[in-house]
């Protein structure tokens, strides 16, 4: 009986994960398109995590001032600072004022390389609970050189801090 219950819990856990993953990917794609990109990167998955219904990531980062709006601004600032460091000024061409039209979700998710890497780390995370938004932050902590992580660092969040967040509701 115990084995059957365990298998049942494992199965429902997987079903919940599939639903969460689908929401995460759809939201990430939506955020990428709002920022004028066709494929989401890790930073768009962070934005998506902040909007997942479980609210665990948003609550964990609220105290540091991280919201979808402030994080988007941090991403853009990160790009602009990098360009200025090379002596390049592209004006406001990196702003979010020319988004792409939202596409209908097809279930086929194409991501940037950083998005693929995030998914790979997400799959490897030891989880004794269903996939939730904090797991996304823990996966991003494994991408220290990514735009996603560097934009989070502007809020004084280190990879170690993210990795040690409590993923349990």
């Amino acid at each position, binding site marked *: 009986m115990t084995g059957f219950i365990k298998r049942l819990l494992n199965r429902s856990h997987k079903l919940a994960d599939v639903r969460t993953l689908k929401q995460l990917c759809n939201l990430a794609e939506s955020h990428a398109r709002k920022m*004028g*990109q*066709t494929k989401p990167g890790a930073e768009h998955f962070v934005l998506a995590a902040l909007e997942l219904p479980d609210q665990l990531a948003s609550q964990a980062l609220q105290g540091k001032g991280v919201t979808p709006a402030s994080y988007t601004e941090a991403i853009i600032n*990160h*790009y*602009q*600072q*990098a*360009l200025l*460091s*090379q*002596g*390049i*000024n*592209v*004006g406001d*061409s*990196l702003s979010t004022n*020319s988004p*792409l*039209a939202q*596409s209908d979700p097809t279930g086929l998710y194409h991501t940037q390389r950083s998005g693929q890497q995030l998914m790979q780390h997400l799959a490897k995370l030891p989880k004794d609970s269903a996939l939730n938004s904090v797991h996304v932050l823990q996966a991003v902590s494994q991408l220290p*050189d990514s*735009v996603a992580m*560097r934009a989070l660092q502007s809020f004084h969040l280190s990879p170690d801090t993210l990795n040690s967040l409590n993923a349990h509701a």
Partner: protein
Amino acid sequence: MSKSTPDPKQDDPAQAFTAAIALRLSADKIEHEAVVAAINQGWSWSRIADAMGISKQAAHKRFRHCIKDR
């Protein structure tokens, strides 16, 4: 876009990589807006492709989503 003489101390390659990504994103955005404007002005895909230096098929495949962005 303006470019001043960069600091020769390239001791932060991570920033340089980020700058390269940002430039690509900026170029993609400029290109996308140009395609939307061209479509709105009645340009054919052949004309758009010629202006971009790519084939008509490549232009249509790469930018057909721009039709939704008009």
